[in-house]
């Protein structure tokens, strides 16, 4: 058994960085020059500063990435003008899979033909010098959104470009995104990313990390999300990260959203303190519905407005927004800008009284807390000479099981469906170590479901299409 500890911190990071930075597409990044550049970047570009100044409402962040520099520049300006508090840089899927040559070829083709052959911004192909130009006058944080199991070079180029928020993590960017990338290698590669975020941080201007809590966004029980988020916060803290956001996706049940936010916030703080990472500052990010969206734009707008209100109720530090065109693919910049405006409208018009509670919410909160604690304690107790090894074993043994993960090493045994209130329930925990009492409570709550007698797969299909 090896608990989270600073002893896991990567040694000889300078030598390791020198190896990674020999890649020709690093274009001669020099750690010293990057440090100097970051010292000149406006302080408002650092999430810690943006969060400290956010006022009463959650910060707003859209998503977006285009292959061409000019298109990305225009998107950045449009989103900023529309009131986005965080500016996204979404990376194309070839770069995410480390296929930089393909990304570069398709970038050239996009440039020649004026058409988009990539589904995001190929950051490594563009390089850090050009990408710095995207943000010359920007006084808001830029958030790197990707889905990359091996993000070592990508994170280097992002930080060198002056991007101070790196999304992802060894679990959240592997299990939902990859079919076969080895989980143990992913854990080690993300140590590198966390470590370079730490070494590029200064007092008051830390490079911020954010985990991706929605995971597969398909019937993931909140206790699994809470456990994964806390594990990734601990892994980052081991490497010296001092600014970290945990996140989760709208569950489909307002009760469960409020309960999840409470537990996630409390337990993240509790475990960071428990393992002597008191100096890590944490934030809570809420993702608007990450599942299948309705094709009717009026319904999509209603869903977006409703989840904006929930983000206010749970006092999220940031909300990541969807658009009314979600069902149709990558939205146009105008539609994306409109979404920021709609969410802003809801946030300022319906400021919540905060502390929303009820016996049902309290019950749900207690259940999620108890389950998440059981799972985390079981992971801590697995054998290993370092915390990351215990996490790796947790997947091998199915203690951690992410529903609908495409990954070959995910157990895929846990069964989850919704109860009568739309909350995600664990119908069969398989090897996920929740107590028998909690398992009984979960089953009991399922009885409220009208089609309980129907086949499980039919219930699941209905649940996945909840918002459609």
């Amino acid at each position: 058994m090896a608990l989270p500890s600073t002893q896991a911190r990567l040694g000889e990071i300078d030598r390791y960085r020198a190896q990674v930075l020999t890649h020709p597409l690093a274009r001669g990044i020099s750690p010293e020059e990057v440090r100097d550049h970051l010292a000149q970047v406006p302080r408002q570009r650092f999430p810690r500063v943006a969060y400290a100044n956010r006022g009463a409402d959650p910060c707003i962040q859209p998503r977006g990435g285009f292959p061409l520099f000019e298109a990305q520049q225009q998107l950045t300006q449009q989103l900023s003008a529309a009131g986005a508090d965080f500016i996204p840089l979404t990376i194309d899927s070839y770069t995410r899979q480390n296929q930089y040559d393909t990304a570069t070829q398709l970038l050239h083709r996009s440039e020649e033909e004026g058409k988009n052959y990539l589904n995001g911004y190929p950051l490594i192909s563009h390089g850090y010098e050009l990408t710095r130009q995207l943000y010359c006058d920007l006084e808001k944080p830029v958030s790197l959104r990707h889905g990359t199991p091996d993000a070592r070079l990508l994170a280097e180029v992002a930080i060198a470009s002056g991007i101070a928020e790196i999304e992802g993590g060894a679990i959240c960017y592997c299990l939902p995104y990859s079919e076969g990338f080895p989980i143990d290698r992913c854990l080690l590669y993300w140590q590198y990313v966390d470590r370079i975020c730490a070494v590029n941080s200064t007092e008051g201007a830390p490079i911020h990390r954010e985990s991706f809590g929605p995971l597969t966004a398909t019937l993931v029980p909140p206790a699994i999300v809470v456990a994964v988020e806390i594990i990734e916060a601990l892994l980052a803290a081991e490497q010296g990260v001092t600014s970290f956001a945990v996140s989760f996706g709208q569950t489909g049940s307002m009760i469960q959203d409020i309960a999840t936010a409470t537990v996630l916030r409390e337990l993240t703080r509790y475990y960071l303190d428990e393992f002597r990472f008191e100096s890590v500052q944490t934030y809570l990010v809420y993702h608007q519905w990450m599942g299948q969206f309705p094709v009717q734009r009026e319904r999509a707008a209603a869903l977006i407005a409703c989840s904006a209100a929930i983000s206010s109720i749970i006092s999220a530090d940031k909300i990541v927004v969807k658009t009314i065109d979600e069902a149709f693919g990558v939205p146009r910049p105008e539609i994306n800008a409109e979404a920021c405006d709609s969410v802003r409208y809801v946030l300022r018009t319906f400021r919540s009284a905060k502390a929303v509670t009820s016996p049902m919410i309290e019950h749900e909160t207690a259940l999620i807390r108890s389950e998440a604690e059981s799972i985390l304690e079981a992971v801590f107790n697995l054998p290993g000479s370092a915390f990351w090894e215990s996490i790796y074993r947790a997947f091998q043994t199915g203690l951690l099981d992410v529903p609908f993960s495409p990954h070959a090493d995910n157990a895929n045994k846990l069964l989850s469906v919704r109860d009568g209130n739309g909350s995600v329930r664990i119908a069969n925990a398989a090897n996920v170590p929740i107590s028998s009492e909690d398992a009984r409570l979960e089953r009991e709550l399922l009885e409220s479901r009208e089609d309980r007698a129907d086949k499980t797969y039919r219930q699941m299909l209905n649940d996945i299409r909840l918002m459609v």
Partner: protein
Amino acid sequence: MVKMSSDYKARVIIGVIGDDIHVVGNRIMQLALEESGFQVFNLRTRVRPEEFCQAALEVNADAVFVSSLNGEGEYWCADFRRLFREAGLGHVILYVGGNIVVGNRPTDEVIKLFEQFGFDRVYHQVTDISVAIADLQEDLKHGAAQHAGAARGD
């Protein structure tokens, strides 16, 4: 035939063909088939035709159900039946379903195409899995491959 005994669970291989990693439908199909009394061997995502064939040989499969969500099906499925016949598995029932071609094409055209590839039944953009499950139960009663694949012979 050993397979006819009453407690025998028919063996079905499922998987998503090509480079497709759409996993949600695959997982639901596994559950649906298991709940309907089949023994399921799930090859999951990014499966090549040869892998379906090899798995069918290994587990003595009664049926193979190929899924494609991103439309790669057309490219990968053309030689599917031939591959099975060459491995001595001409009797195995072959089904295919999902969004099996790229773009919008008339369903009957798509069905005809995949029947020519040697599939016994084709479910293009059919969302209710229970249709295929009922068909499979029926087809298995009549012994393997009463449909197009065997009818066309070698």
